């Protein structure tokens, strides 16, 4: 047994080194689904690109010319059945929220439109007991994705084509690109 362990010591050393390397770093915390939110301690939400917690804001959109769409992602089922209030002067405008049927974590809320660039305070309420369970302050920006370092960029329509089944490192140089791109593919619309 001793001889066996001595000969296999290399494997054990490799395993230990791999374990140490794997454990090195600052992983993001796994959200605690059992956390309860209430009026006294509502969740402070932010953009999903910055921090994806139990509930986060994906962004804003427009429904026609008259309606604002507020886009949420809810990892915690507590936030599945909600409505949103946005303070406007003394009133609070209510936005009804819908859970996407096939993708239950995705919630979108529709209500009166706000102008681009307006700062708003979002208050998220549970439908069941109308208690405030989350809130956050945001600036409405249509067609823009917010990044962690507040660098904003506008989504533009891409012009060049890409191969079918692209590889990891393909560059879209050819006019008739194949399907299934490889890993080398560089997507011209890829966000920085």
């Amino acid at each position, binding site marked *: *047994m001793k001889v*066996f362990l001595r000969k296999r010591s*290399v*494997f054990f*050393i*490799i395993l230990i*080194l*791999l374990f140490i*390397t794997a*454990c*090195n*770093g600052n*992983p*993001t915390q*796994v959200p605690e689904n059992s956390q309860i939110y209430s009026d006294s301690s509502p969740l402070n939400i932010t953009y999903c690109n910055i921090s994806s917690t139990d509930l986060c804001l*994906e*962004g804003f*959109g*427009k*429904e*026609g010319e008259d309606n604002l*769409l507020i*886009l949420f*992602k809810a990892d915690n089922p507590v936030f599945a059945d909600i409505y949103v209030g946005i303070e406007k002067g003394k009133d609070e405008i209510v936005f009804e929220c*819908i859970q*996407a*049927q*096939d*993708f239950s974590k*995705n919630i*979108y809320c529709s209500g009166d439109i706000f102008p681009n660039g307006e700062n708003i305070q979002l208050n998220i309420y549970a439908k069941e007991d109308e208690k405030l369970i989350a809130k956050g302050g945001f600036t409405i920006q*249509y*067609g*823009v994705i917010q990044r962690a370092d507040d660098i904003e960029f506008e*989504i*533009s*329509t*891409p012009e*060049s*084509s*890409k*191969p*079918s*089944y692209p*590889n*990891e*490192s393909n560059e879209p140089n*050819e006019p*008739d690109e*194949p*399907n*299934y*791109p*490889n*890993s*080398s*593919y560089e997507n*011209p*619309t*890829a966000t920085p």
Partner: protein
Amino acid sequence: MWQIILDGLSVLDKNGLIVFCIVSLLSLGCCANFFLFRNLAKQKNALRSTFSLFLLILFFVFSIIVRLAYLKDIFVPPYFDSVEHLKIIKELVEGFSTSTFLERLPNLTSNYYHLGFHFIASLLTFGLRADPINVILVFGQIILAAMPIPIFFLIWHKTQSGTAAFFALLLAGFGWYMPGFAINWGKYPALTGLLAFEIVLSIAYALSKRKTGQNQSVLIIFLIFGVLVSTLIHTRTLVILFISFASWFFAGRIHTLPQSYQYSMLRIQLLGILILGILIQKDPLLKLALEPYLDNGILIALIALILSPFALSKFPRGVYFNALFVLSIFACLFIPFNGSVLKLTNQTLLDRPFVEMILYLPLSLLGGLGLAGFLESLKNTKILSKQNRLYTKALTTFLFIGFIGFFSIKNYNFYPVEYCNFLKYDDTVILDWMDKNLPSDARILVASDKLNVVPSSISADLVGSDAGIWVHLLTDKKTILMPYELDFLSTETIEELCQNQIGYIYVGSTSQSFNTQQLRKEVGWYKEILFLPNAQLYQLKSCFPKN
């Protein structure tokens, strides 16, 4: 790395039952692999083989966890193939639920499309009462985690070296971004077919090593059954099975020749590989097949090739087999195939994605054989003392398994690539809105591109090129595919849209989506219904009267 493990564990937490069932199913195959080789293995030390198996199980568990990280933020299986997979699986599940399976089978798809894979996935979906999307996603990752295992057993038996077997295992699992990257193409049937092919290869190899009378008939039945199953899962496995059997047969024949003739034959094979490789590199479509092994993975490929002389000295038949295998699959890229019986036209025996996916196999086998040959040479060398030989062996093991394994896993991309992941958050919102708000007879225009995988053929088939491909399946609304380069500013386009009674235009976020700027510009013709950062929906306002 730690983040990848955490992501994988969180996915495992949500899909535990599906993972457990699929792993149990695959474990049967892996156990079969083990028992096939257990009696044939000449392991003198039971403790050593138990240790190797323990490490193998550890590797499998680790692979499952890290591969599941892929599913953390993905909504549906990627690329355009996946829509068809899901559609067929849903039909089959409906057939099981309503006992109308046999009636539905003939009309399931207009073209033959790997019904074996869809049958397995639909059985899992039906049995687990699970969401078919989750089943496909999880199934694909478990298959990827399991793919290196038959290679481990093959090398382990052939070389009697656990080190070499683990090295081959690492190469097959993480040495190159293929075959794992194929998940981004939605190549679920092909990957499942490759795993089935590897298991059949193991059975065939075990059969070739058994002495007459030792349960040979049972193995033959299993072999035939395996060939049938793998062909049903993916038809092209029949081609590579034939290539494998032929390569093994001819490798055996070459091995019986005098050594100088053997080396001459090998030189001819290598020359053939070089010539075909150059031809492949010259074609802009086909050269993608070698990219994982010549670009990102060149270092690992070179290590496998550098070890090949040691493989040649100790396991020459294995080297001849790999060379013939590579030569044959390269040749298949140029051999046309008329599959009109299966309603498949303009095909070659193997296509570029498939060859690209399978090249990891001969390279992994070569790497394993080469390392075993190198370690064998160390054992027999008289230059070093016995103690120095042990240290050198330990250092070699550390270098090849520890360093290269660590390097490969560290540089491996465990997450989806954006340009293959068509359906993003914004698309899910628009699809749900369309399902709830558009009339049932709405006709929606979605972007597409020509299917282009075979160099010599001009394909007329259009395939979806953004999330619009999911509209029909998820909203039950009629979709019409048109090329993504459509000029929405031209009156001919308007006429064509009106002729097709198109009411709405879906714009996704890929580089092959419609030009949203054109649609926003022509407010007289197109009305913006929904505008989200990564997806939009437009309505065609009016049609031009014909002159």
